[in-house]
């Protein structure tokens, strides 16, 4: 897939500045035993809660609807055709 499609940005191409950064990564030395899981993190994985569903307040719902770019009879309007 092209960068234009991946990014949903017209005419998207790789930037020289970013390419320069990435070449530095490709050339970086990494010890053979390195992996992504050997560092200690501040946040702990054994203290997670279950997902829970909460109803938004009336004000929050009202503001969410106010932010609709296009609205008709309280519903969000989008293009009828997804893709040609």
């Amino acid at each position, binding site marked *: 897939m092209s960068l234009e499609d991946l990014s949903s940005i017209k005419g998207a191409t*790789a930037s020289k500045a970013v390419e*320069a950064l990435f070449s530095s990564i490709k050339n970086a030395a990494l010890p053979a035993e390195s992996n992504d899981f050997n*560092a200690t993190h501040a946040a702990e994985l054994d203290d997670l809660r279950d997902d829970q569903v909460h109803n938004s307040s009336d004000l929050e719902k009202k503001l*969410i609807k106010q932010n609709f770019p296009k609205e008709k009879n309280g519903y969000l309007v989008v293009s009828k055709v997804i893709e040609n």
Partner: protein
Amino acid sequence: MASQIIQLHEKLVNKEISCTQLIKEKLKSLEQNQYNSVNFLLAESALAKAKIVDDKIAKGEKIGVLEGIPFGVKDVFMLQGEHASASSNFLKNYIAPYTATAIQKLIDAGAIPVCKENADAFGHGSTSENTIFGAVKNAHNDQLVGGGSSGGSAVNVAKGYTAFSIGGDTGGSIRQPAGFNKVYGLKPTYGRVSRFGLMAYTSSTDCVGPIASSIEDIEIVMNTISGKDYHDQTTYASSPITLNAAPETLNFSVGYYSDFIDNKGLDADIKKDFLAVIEKIKAKGITVKALNFGSTDSLVSTYYALAMAETASNLARLDGSMYGERATADTLKESYAITRSEGFSEESKRRIVGGNQVLSQGHADEIYLKARALRSQIMSHFDKDFTEVSVILSPVSPSTPPSIGSSLKDPLAMYLSDIYTIGFSLGELPTLTAPVGTATGIQITTAKKQDELTLQFAKFLKEVL
């Protein structure tokens, strides 16, 4: 400088000024300022809150230390019913449906948000020029940049327009503008302050923290906004910070990275001044050890590979469907593409495209996964260094603030200018910019969850210099 919060609190309690007067004065100075530091004033809600404080004082009721204190909010935070533009064209008319946890905690303590502050759009920048509200001008020289991305916040504190401001720091966005404008700025340990309601840039390094003119104010704000949050599962419970520890408990041992200081890109005066600070610390009988960071060549690349990958993912939700500006087209896919092409700035597009490049098939292994492994290596390196020293000092920036307009021409140079701040972001470490020692200050870093020690050392350093 003495605590602005305490000074204003005493004036309110002693009835030297009413809260309404105070807020009106701040709103006026913010409105008239020529530094492009403000995106939106919060006049109506601020004055309503001020009246409540005045009524309380009139009844002889006791007020908390933050009650009636005006503060600024970087315009990447949600504050219910107010604009949250991220300084972007995309969200210029967006209204926040809810309030960020850190901001809500300050409001609950009685502090009054007075403005949404200018910044680089979505935090994408190091100069606060990547904004639709005009480049933020440096508080001490309006020909120079205010730093970024929390440039408006740092300028407002430096000029005294706000008592303190709340910024976001992903790779230095609190610390570098604090240094450029000669104020304090803290990036806490990752997870100490909730990110809920902060627009996500790089979720694995995004931090919320204060910018203030004194260490005491940083302490007061941190003790209000820290703590575990239901809405952010990366937060953890923490004890309050105490600046006034008994001197015998402060047995500092200091380190600095010699390869940071030997970097050819470091300004000669900043290098000289930094080394002079080291000598003054040694003269106090404190052990100072020269350390080796070891991977400075790939440090900036590691940070940006991860930051771009995460921001590409986080900003994929901005397609103009449910909120934000939308360009109309015949098909949904075309609508997304035109909306995103028109809504994002060149710098944001560069980072999104770079992120998708990093994550795409064929590049993920050699760039993204390798960057994650390099980050892990950097974190382990910090863990080891903090078994040898308790505090690490470093410059904030390799050079003094550039002229407005010069950085936009050279994005690679802008990325490389973040070299001294981004490592500590990758390490999740508490790091404070103290406006002492060099033209852009000194960074004070301690081990994870040692935020208190960071501030205690800053207090010590202020006394030494």
